[in-house]
């Protein structure tokens, strides 16, 4: 057992840290320092900076233009990005559909799509959930009818996050009603500029314009845009859920939340006139959260170490999602509590509250979603109960 990073890995961490601090534009650094929300254009700006460095896809193999980082390097890289408060890239192309195209795509599909995902030239979004198919994804009804040379798609998708900025959407669609409901699903890549695609953005609980409903009315999709086998989309979807889970458990996000809380604790005056950071009760709260994060970090390291040895992280990684999402919320809740009256402020102009606190209430509200998205925590628990604990069917 050796829980330290190797000298090479530590050197890599220094390199990454140094590069990030030089590469982030000043306004972006200022926003990060002030703990502000990044808009989609800012996210894409950062995407392109990373792309220029060759680091935009740390987990992609080099042959596809990825950085080809080891599992450990990927983890360190993610930690450092979160630590610096860099904008979180949109995962739909890089983390989700990209790897699926690499694994299931034809050569033509690889050549067509991968380079533009990397460069950021084409932005992707995800068409999975439907109004009546959330946790029960397989009951989706958006259908793609075989019209000989193309599919005709009708239906609607919800939670198509940032669809208003997207050039492409990857969709699970029903291509057959035969057999189990999972069996008739296919995985389609659809051009958002196609006729009949309509996007209706909506606000999140955090007041940010991230969610969209996307509607498909007689949308023609070339057959070349089918990824993987016809009616075989469910396997692709499952492959993807694993990725998403590990992603969400990210230690860096909680670490940043905790840093925000600590900074607020240092600035806010407590009941005895001293900073809250000196108050024994608040200090204990901060300590508990940091201690709990420490256990979570080690759980993540264990998963990384498994991956570093070339194994797939099993369903065990579900616990990273469960714990990470809850800790994210706890950090938000603590930050809010520390803010006192300032937590009442909702996206007001500068000056209403200290800059650093401005986005905290929005983040707090939005992060209620962390226990819901990417397979709700209830679904994760069902998975663990069945696949790991082997408990009897409900």
């Amino acid at each position, binding site marked *: 057992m050796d829980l330290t990073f190797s000298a090479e890995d530590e050197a890599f961490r220094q390199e990454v840290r140094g590069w990030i601090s030089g590469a982030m534009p000043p306004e972006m650094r200022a926003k990060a320092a002030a703990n502000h929300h990044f808009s989609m254009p800012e996210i894409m700006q950062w995407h392109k900076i990373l792309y220029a460095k060759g680091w935009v896809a740390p987990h992609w193999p080099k042959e596809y233009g990825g950085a080809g980082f080891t599992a450990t390097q990927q983890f360190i890289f993610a930690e450092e990005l979160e630590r610096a408060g860099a904008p979180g890239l949109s995962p739909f192309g890089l983390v989700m559909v990209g790897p699926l195209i690499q694994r299931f795509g034809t050569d033509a599909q690889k050549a067509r799509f991968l380079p533009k995902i990397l460069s950021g030239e084409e932005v992707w979004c995800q068409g999975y*959930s439907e109004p*009546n*198919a*959330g*946790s*029960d994804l397989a*009951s989706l009804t958006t259908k793609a009818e075989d019209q000989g040379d193309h599919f005709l798609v009708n239906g609607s998708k*919800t*939670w198509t996050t940032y669809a208003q900025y997207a050039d492409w959407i990857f969709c699970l669609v029903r291509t057959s009603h035969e057999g189990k409901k999972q069996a008739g699903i296919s995985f389609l890549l659809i051009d958002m500029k196609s006729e009949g695609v309509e996007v209706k953005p*909506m*606000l*999140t*609980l955090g*007041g940010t314009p991230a*969610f969209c409903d996307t509607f498909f009315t007689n949308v023609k999709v070339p057959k070349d845009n089918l990824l993987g086998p016809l009616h075989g989309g469910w396997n692709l979807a499952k492959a993807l859920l694993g990725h998403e889970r590990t992603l969400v458990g990210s230690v860096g996000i909680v670490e940043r939340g905790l840093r925000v809380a600590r900074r607020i604790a240092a600035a*806010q*005056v*407590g*009941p005895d*006139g001293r900073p809250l950071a000196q108050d024994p*009760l*608040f200090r204990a709260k901060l300590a508990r959260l940091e201690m709990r994060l420490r256990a979570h970090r080690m759980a993540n390291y264990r998963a990384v170490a498994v991956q570093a040895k070339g194994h797939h992280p099993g369903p065990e990684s579900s616990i990273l999602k469960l714990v990470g999402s809850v800790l994210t919320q706890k950090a938000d809740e603590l930050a*809010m*509590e520390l803010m*006192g*009256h*300032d*937590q*009442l*402020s*909702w*996206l*007001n102009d500068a*000056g*209403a509250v200290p800059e650093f606190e401005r986005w905290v*209430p929005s983040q707090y*509200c*939005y992060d*209620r*979603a962390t*226990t*819901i*998205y990417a397979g*709700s*925590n*209830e679904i994760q*628990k069902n998975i663990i109960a069945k696949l790991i604990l082997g408990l009897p069917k409900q």
Partner: protein
Amino acid sequence: MDFDLNEEQRMLAKTVADFCKQDSTVERFRKLRDADGDGWERRVWQQMGELGWLGVPFPERVGGFGGAFVDAALILEQFGRTLVPEPYLSCLVLGGYALLLGGSEEQQRRFLAPMVEGRSAVALGWAERRSRFDPSRVETSATRRGDGWHLEGEKIFVLDGHAADEVVVSARTDQGVGLFVVPGDAVDRQLLRLLDGRRGAHLRLDLDVGDDRRLSVQDGAEVLRRVLDYGAAATVAEGVGVAQSMLSRTVDYLGEREQFGVKIGSFQALQHRAVDMFVEVELLRSINMESIVRADEEGIERERAISAAKLQLADGGLQVARQAIQLHGGIGVTDEHDIGLFFKRMHVLATVGGDEAHHVARYAKRMD
């Protein structure tokens, strides 16, 4: 011991409930939230005055009905159910009780009576950047100038202070903390959107007021403590309505929403969570009753009961709110769905009048 409402109170609650259902739905709140105006309507405030709702806890000499705080609390509970936006808590309770407890009869007639009629709204500005939840930590100063006073300083997060006709503010004089009534349009107000979609203001004070605008009470800090206790009790009362709405909306949703071919309300894990919500709502209801009845009392049991109620609101109530979002799943985290509006209101109520840590610390100090 009797937890039932009397006949008059039952009638009052029923009338208010009908009003909320017909005239002040959640949709109305949402529209006002999204519009540019004040976030509430003068017209409706006046209507409330005409219906007598703004006078229930106040003495007849200001046009009130000489009732108890309980009556105002009953109204607030109903308001919580549909998120009525009028400044009942911010002005009627906070501003109103500051005038009632701090002002001379003359001052009450001058400033409180118009509010009772719905012709005016009087907010309360007590919090400052360094006060946290302690109203005796006042840095705003009041110095003698001629016959009157010069006020200088800042008041933050004055609920509905953006639209109030008058604002009662605290300021330090050479004899302790005094309370002053300043005209809303005479101060520099920075409009604030609040987490729950309502509004407030930071006030920058740098003005002269006549001595007749200094409330007659000597110890303003003590009055503020009493007033904030009324405020805290009011948040709990409103919170009962909010929590009850969240529970019933969630139970309805669980009974309607289908996944995996069944109603999701048939899943045992979700059922037990709904039961956890129910338990917290029942505890909140119960301690709310003690809190609103004791609000008019003097002494330590008032503080204990109200702090216990605030803990139940901030802890149990927020658990209810968070669980309601979780059980609504994806749609719960959109701005479009109403459940989020209740969630945000609950969070604001849990904070106003002292947060959880404040009330636990206060209770701990007052333990034998």
